[in-house]
């Protein structure tokens, strides 16, 4: 995507001293600037990740040994897993990838001065803050919402959760959902109407393609969630019985509605990641993306198929066998466009001249770990096989490989790739690489053994698991690990060994977050200043954001760039 930006470029320089930046409060609290809103989203996402990650650490600490160590009871545990899931999905990955990188780079990449609806953009962000506070507060009201992120009734109905906590969680999702829908409408409008002259759809950078498909998924899927949780709200408070069997309703109806949203939702989280990885792989291979059209339409295909596979989350609820056969077939098909993407990334690198910078390491890590998560998805797609694996740790391992090791790796990849552009300062390469390797080892140690737990049948969402309680001197984190592992492996039964190893991986992953935070502060306060195109893109990979200064001027592209 080479662009003729000479005119606007000199113009930007001329504006450097007169950016018309508002004062602090107006700039950050009433912001209508896509870059400032993107920054707010990224800060929000990092803070929410610390909260969501804190719950992960609690969970791994609890499961390191059998018996109850940290959680007072199963309800407290259920509140943790619910909060962890909802926070990571709605307040970390979505705001980070869509709100953060989407806001920052969609207008820059298409040569637009800002988003189509700047004030709508502002309210999209500020709806998230009360949503997050409501969700956090729900954990402290009554028993807390211990329903799992899927909030299945009747457990989430007054039968299982009589207090106000689930109502608060529902309102949190309403607000987060409204935020997403408004943001998606904004992206669609921006991408369709504000591209620079000459940038046809088929010349659009792949990240913009990813955001376009994602935005359509959001607009079509999130209202269904809104409807489902509103029906749940009226069941809870106003005497309806949509999901109550005693009133003629059906709990399974909720599951159909939830997963009609929920399955596209997982693609909403991964498609922007695909976009980011495409840019990084191309930049650092010094080659244009291989099979550009195939890449773009693979995302469109994944988005479409994502809407017709939802019941593969419900193979054990008592669906008709022919229905299960259909959903098995439809789900397997997803592997085809996903395979096209994986192979196209590798083909992009093939013949390239690769620099293994930090973002490239995260991107390559993404490609491999997403493949591992993808192939376990092929196993789970089979309705028969799912009889053994449904709701076990195999599923937990699978979706953490594609999301935690997929989407989150892409978040870090994008962060290191663009932090110089966003802040004007480059991250320290050593810390970035250290962060990558510690995380890579940590998350694999954390999630790979969970496959074994799942194959043996360990169910999800368990505060305690079958295994003999170890003798006093082998309990806790500071027991001799060799002796402890020998003892655990010698037991006749139980899930202790792999849970313990998984928790060790959790501790390493927790430590990697500290490295990341040091890297962030180092970058912001002591990072080297960088120029416009600090990655030395070849012309074919030099998308428009590399034609403006780092950080870009407060208002860019006063004169529209022209794309050849």
């Amino acid at each position, binding site marked *: 995507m080479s662009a003729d930006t000479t005119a606007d470029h000199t113009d930007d320089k001329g504006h450097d001293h007169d950016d018309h930046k508002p004062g602090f409060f107006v700039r950050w609290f009433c912001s209508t600037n896509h870059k400032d809103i993107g920054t707010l989203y990224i800060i929000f996402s990092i803070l929410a990740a610390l909260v969501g990650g804190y719950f992960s650490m609690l969970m791994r600490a609890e499961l390191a040994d059998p018996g109850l160590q940290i959680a007072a009871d*199963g309800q407290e545990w259920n509140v943790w897993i619910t909060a962890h899931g909802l926070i990571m999905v709605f307040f970390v990955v979505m705001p980070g990838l869509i709100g953060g990188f989407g806001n920052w780079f969609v207008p820059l990449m298409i040569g637009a001065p800002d988003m189509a609806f700047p004030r709508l953009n502002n309210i999209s962000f500020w709806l998230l803050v009360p949503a997050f506070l409501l969700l956090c507060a729900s954990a402290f009201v009554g028993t807390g919402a211990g329903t799992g992120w899927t909030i299945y009734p*009747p457990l989430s109905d007054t039968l*299982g959760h009589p207090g106000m906590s689930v109502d608060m969680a529902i309102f949190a999702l309403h607000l987060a959902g409204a935020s997403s829908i408004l943001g998606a409408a904004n992206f669609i409008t921006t991408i369709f109407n504000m591209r620079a002259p000459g940038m046809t759809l088929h010349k659009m950078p792949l990240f913009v393609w990813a955001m376009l498909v994602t935005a359509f998924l959001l607009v079509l899927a999130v209202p269904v969630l809104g409807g489902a949780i509103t029906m749940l709200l009226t069941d809870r408070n106003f005497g309806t019985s949509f999901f109550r069997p005693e009133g003629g309703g059906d709990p399974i109806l909720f599951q159909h509605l939830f997963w009609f949203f929920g399955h596209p939702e997982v693609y909403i989280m991964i498609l922007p990641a695909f976009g980011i990885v495409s840019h990084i792989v191309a930049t650092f291979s010094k080659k244009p993306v291989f099979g550009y059209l195939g890449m773009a339409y693979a995302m469109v295909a994944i988005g479409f198929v994502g809407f017709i596979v939802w019941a593969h989350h419900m193979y054990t609820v008592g669906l008709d066998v022919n229905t299960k056969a259909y959903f098995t077939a439809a789900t397997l098909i997803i592997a085809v466009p996903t395979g096209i993407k994986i192979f196209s990334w590798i083909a992009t690198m093939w013949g390239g*001249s690769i620099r293994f910078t930090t973002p490239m390491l995260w991107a390559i890590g993404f490609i491999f770990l997403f*493949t591992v998560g993808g192939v376990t998805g092929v196993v789970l797609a*089979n309705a*028969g096989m799912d009889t053994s694996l449904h709701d076990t740790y195999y599923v937990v391992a699978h979706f953490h490989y594609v999301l935690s090791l997929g989407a989150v790796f892409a978040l870090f990849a994008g962060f290191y790739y663009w932090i110089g552009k966003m802040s004007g300062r480059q991250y320290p390469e050593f810390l970035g690489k250290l962060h990558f390797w510690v995380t890579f080892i940590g998350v694999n140690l954390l999630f790979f053994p969970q496959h074994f737990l799942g194959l043996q049948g360990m169910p999800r969402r368990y505060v305690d698991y079958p295994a003999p309680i170890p003798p006093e001197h082998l309990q806790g984190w500071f027991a001799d690990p060799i002796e402890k592992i020998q003892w655990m492996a010698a037991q006749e039964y139980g899930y202790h*060994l792999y849970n313990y190893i998984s928790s060790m991986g959790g501790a390493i992953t927790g430590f990697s977050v500290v490295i990341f935070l040091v890297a962030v502060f180092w970058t912001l306060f002591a990072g080297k200043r960088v120029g416009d195109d600090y990655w030395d893109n070849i012309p074919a990979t030099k998308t428009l954001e590399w034609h403006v200064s780092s950080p870009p001027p407060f208002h860019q592209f006063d004169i529209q760039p022209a794309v050849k």
Partner: protein
Amino acid sequence: MKYLHLLSLNLLALVTLAAPALAGEPKPTSLGLQEAASPNKARLVEFHDDLLMWIITAISLFVLILLVIVALRFNEKANPEPSTTTHNVPLEIVWTVIPIIILIIIAVPSFKLLYYLDRAPNPEMTLKVSGYQWGWTYSYPDQEIEDYNADYVTDEELADFIPDGQGRRLLETYNPIVLPTGKDIQILVTASDVLHSWTVPAFGVKKDAVPGRLNETWVHISKPGKYFGQCSEICGIRHAYMPISVYGVPEDEFNQWVECMKSDEGQDTDYPARFCVQKFDFDRYRTIESEEEIASIE
């Protein structure tokens, strides 16, 4: 899969003391599915170990090897001049068509398995299961055994309740269930409050218990033994504390157990199902392992 078992053995070799192998419960070092105690599970194990594992391992290794080759051959030192290739239509067709073929190879046995697991065409008996917060209610309509509850045995009582340290923490119930081997058993599953899910990994059975619905599944227990499962759908504070404990015993002994359950002797005890299991010492089937032993019982 063979190498999984080998790996598992290697892990075992690391430990000082090899554990006796019992069927029907999770093993600390196992890397694969639980051992099959029914044709349902046997086919699942076959599908997973002999087909899926090979395919997914091969694909993962293939991608890994490509990435390693790329890293070695096309780093900036080894290859300072990048190529400008952006298209290769035959290659793109190949990597679209080959995955489709692989998926068809998976789909055909997958559908056969799915339809096989769905229901028993001519079940010989029925077990009714109803989940509640937090335990299971069982009844045997054909044997006229009325509803009885199976709650989990607390840690405090485990050692007293099941002697010789054989008790399985969080897996034992005061009242177990007993099913005959060698029969097609229809299992009807429902729930009385929230969702639950009735699961026995060694049987290859998992069915959600949904209030207002009656779900059907089936099992054919192929060898005597004791089998455990756990609730597999989040159901509240004690979700982790509603296990399933099943004895599979030969038919004549099952009939004796049924008689005991209906007799005054059984009904006068606190836990009739447990009392009758102990009366006929079904726990001796826990350690049944070799083919000869199984053959000698049947």
